[in-house]
């Protein structure tokens, strides 16, 4: 039986963690994602860029209480990709 290939963008621990976190919220700040995933700032920045390039997340840079703030939210494309990834994982797990 042939299994559906797993989306290479999502099949990475940190990127999958970020997308799974964003599925449950409307929008989250960089610091919140950093705290919940336990990643390093550098690695998280790189993985967020990859998710943004894939069109899975929207990154908004604003100011919050006079400090620069980066917030992220899933795009409809990201939600679809996540749903397909979950369906594929379920298939693998039988």
């Amino acid at each position, binding site marked *: 039986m042939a299994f559906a290939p*797993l989306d290479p963008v999502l*099949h*990475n*621990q*940190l990127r*999958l*963690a*970020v997308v*799974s*976190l*964003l*599925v*449950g*919220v*409307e*929008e*989250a*700040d960089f*610091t*919140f994602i950093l705290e*919940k*995933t*336990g*990643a390093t700032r550098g*690695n998280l920045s790189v*993985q967020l860029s990859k998710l943004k390039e894939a069109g899975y997340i929207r990154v908004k840079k604003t100011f*919050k*209480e006079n400090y620069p703030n980066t917030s992220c939210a899933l795009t409809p494309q990201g939600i679809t990709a996540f749903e397909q*990834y*979950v369906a594929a*994982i379920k298939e*693998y*797990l039988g």
Partner: protein
Amino acid sequence: MDQDLTPEQSLKVIESMIGQAKKSFSRMSFYFLLWGVLLIAAMAATYLLRNGSEAFSQGASWGIAGLIGGILSSIHGAREGRRQPVNNPMDRVIGWIWGAFVITMMIVIAASVSNHQDPGGMITLLTGFATFLTGQIMRFKPLIIGGVLFWIAGLAMHFTNDPLTLTALYCGSMFFGYIIPGLMLKNQEDGLRTA
């Protein structure tokens, strides 16, 4: 954190992160503690001044408590809204529940006052409804229990007219339904912030 994953590991990551997101509510303890203290004070003032001042016997203390609570809640809500690191859709649902509670409460007060009835029992039942739902959404047992206590107190208040009993029932339900869960929630929120 960037190695390849097995399907089992993927599932674990997904479950764990969704669980984290579900727990990410904005800080709500402030509202329970503020309103708990204000409403207990309003009830106590109404009881203690019931024979001395016409304004207080007619519910002036509730108006004062509502005004102070409304202003402080708005200021706090606006400030926290700017600081909040995450927007959880459930926060909005909880906001709608309390918004609907306030509207229903206003209608109940207006209807009761025009019929010369005490709205206390009905308001306590309504408070139980909103507190119970908030507790269920947040999966926070002390608020769920608090909601049930409001229901019991609200029901009991329909069977008595004794001012002292009514005061004790209302203040007791506020203490165990707002103050104690509020303190426990504050503890939990402070723990999450420093974790």
